[in-house]
């Protein structure tokens, strides 16, 4: 059989998936871009004659909206505090589990992963009660240390940290598995050689483990940060963006504007600002990674 019919077969295998991705992913992305330059709102939703192109008005309006700046700051707070904390906890637990001194390793690995597969909504609901100021388990536990009671989700100063702690609890197991795989790929003889040279445990960690884990770490940081920028369900369930908008994220704002107030043009512009931020972050990461490889 020659190559031509085979290429035809390839396209037949590809076309259903490509059609789905083209129509329900690529097209909406392009449409969202176009939408962000229109004043599409609840009237246009009823009748498509009622919208017009408004140029960059939505983008100008975004930057003139104080709530957007609040949402941007909150999202960066969540990403810049939660991201590194999550990666650090994942690396820490992976190192502990990788140690030969650790017992019941498989058991712990499974336990640490359970929150990852649990529904975020259910988890957020559980934590909402754990955080309850009067009868929450957390304040009860802290009362033994003489701390509190703290109104975790009702105080603007601690609401975001509370959401970060929950988010880290929920997803550290995922990155932990990736780190564990990275650790297992480091050849044992590197450590043996270092041991013969009289390197201490800390020195071995600094000069073997960390450098060898660099590609894994870059990957983990990338997926964690991209995921964290999309913060939505936690504030939706736990705080409705409050108190005083202190947990309103960019996606939460987009949802409110687009699907509650039906300002879809404006919401599309918010979505594209988020996309631009994520894209910029990804590009910086890739550049850093490339310079590391050289």
């Amino acid at each position: 059989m020659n190559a031509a019919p085979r290429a035809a077969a390839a396209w037949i295998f590809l076309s259903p998936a490509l059609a789905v991705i083209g129509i329900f992913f690529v097209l909406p992305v392009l449409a969202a871009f176009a939408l962000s330059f229109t004043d599409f709102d609840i009237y246009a939703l009823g009748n498509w004659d009622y919208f017009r192109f408004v140029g960059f008005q939505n983008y100008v309006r975004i930057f003139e909206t104080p709530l957007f700046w609040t949402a941007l700051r909150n999202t960066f707070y969540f990403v810049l505090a939660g991201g590194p904390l999550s990666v650090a906890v994942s690396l820490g637990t992976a190192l502990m589990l990788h140690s030969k001194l650790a017992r019941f390793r498989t058991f712990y690995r499974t336990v640490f992963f359970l929150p990852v597969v649990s529904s975020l909504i259910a988890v957020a609901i559980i934590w909402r009660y754990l955080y309850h100021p009067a009868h929450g388990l957390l304040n009860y536990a802290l009362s033994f240390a003489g701390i509190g009671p703290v109104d975790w989700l009702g105080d603007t100063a601690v609401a975001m940290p509370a959401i970060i702690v929950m988010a880290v609890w929920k997803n550290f197991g995922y990155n932990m598995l990736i780190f564990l795989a990275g650790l297992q790929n480091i050849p044992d003889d590197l450590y043996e050689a270092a041991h013969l040279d009289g390197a201490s445990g800390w020195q071995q960690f600094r000069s073997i483990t960390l450098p060898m884990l660099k590609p894994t770490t870059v990957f983990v940081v990338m997926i964690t940060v991209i995921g964290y920028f999309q913060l939505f369900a936690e504030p939706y369930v736990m705080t409705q963006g409050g108190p005083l908008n202190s947990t309103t994220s960019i996606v939460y704002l987009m949802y409110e504007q687009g699907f509650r107030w039906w300002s879809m043009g404006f919401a599309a512009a918010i979505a594209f600002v988020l996309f631009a931020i994520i894209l910029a972050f990804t590009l910086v990461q890739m550049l850093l990674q490339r310079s590391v490889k050289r």
Partner: protein
Amino acid sequence: MKRRTMSLLLNSGLFLIGLTTLAPVLWMLSASFMPSGEAGTFPPPLFPSAPTLEHYAALTERLSMMRYFLNSFIIAGSVTVVSTLLNSMAGFAFAKYQFAGRDRLFGALLSGMVVPAQVTMLPLFLMMKEMGFVNTYVGAVIPGMASIFGIFLIRQFVSAIPDSLIEAARIDGGSEFRIYRTVILPLCKPILLTLALFTFMGTWNDFMWPLIIMTDQSNYTLQVGLANLMGEHVLDLELMMAGSVVTIIPVLALFLVFQKHYVRGIMVGGVKE
């Protein structure tokens, strides 16, 4: 001696982290069996004084939780079946056929993974509205019918299958589709299981799209129904915990049974949740 102290520290550390990880889940389970009002007393009780199933009964009898459960099951099940089929065909084509523009197309697909799903949701909703799919299973299923990650996962796996197996089947006169069905699919069983698990669990836990597309309470998925229940029954702590148990248990059970296959999916490469 130093080694023993290290070991003690390490293992107590692991125990503490394990406890912190499990405690909220165990408390959820325990509180779901408490009589109404008990979990909201101070100090918070750890175990039910008189275990009861009343909240589970209320969820199924009064609060259409079974309906949500069924909706979730139908949607996640359909997405899993359809997307596993479409992704496996596309992944196979990318791995084993030569055609013009193959690598560029694959690269373009991969770069699409940086686009956050939320960007697509506004136009997708308008499209579904025009097509009459708002508030239907079809609307909830359609965007998940193929995934870039799924195609990537299959392609990685199929690339490792030796070409000679495919050539041998061709010499025997098998059509290309027959080769896919009788050579590739059987060999792909482990990765298909992995992909199916990821898809099912991901769709089951998905919140934002069903929240947007399902406008009628009777069409809510478990996630949306649970979040909605929270609005109405926020003071019904034990009831909310029972609802959470019902929402979490199916995927947790799936994970515990198929853990090995699930973990493989993470190892193969960049998973976007």
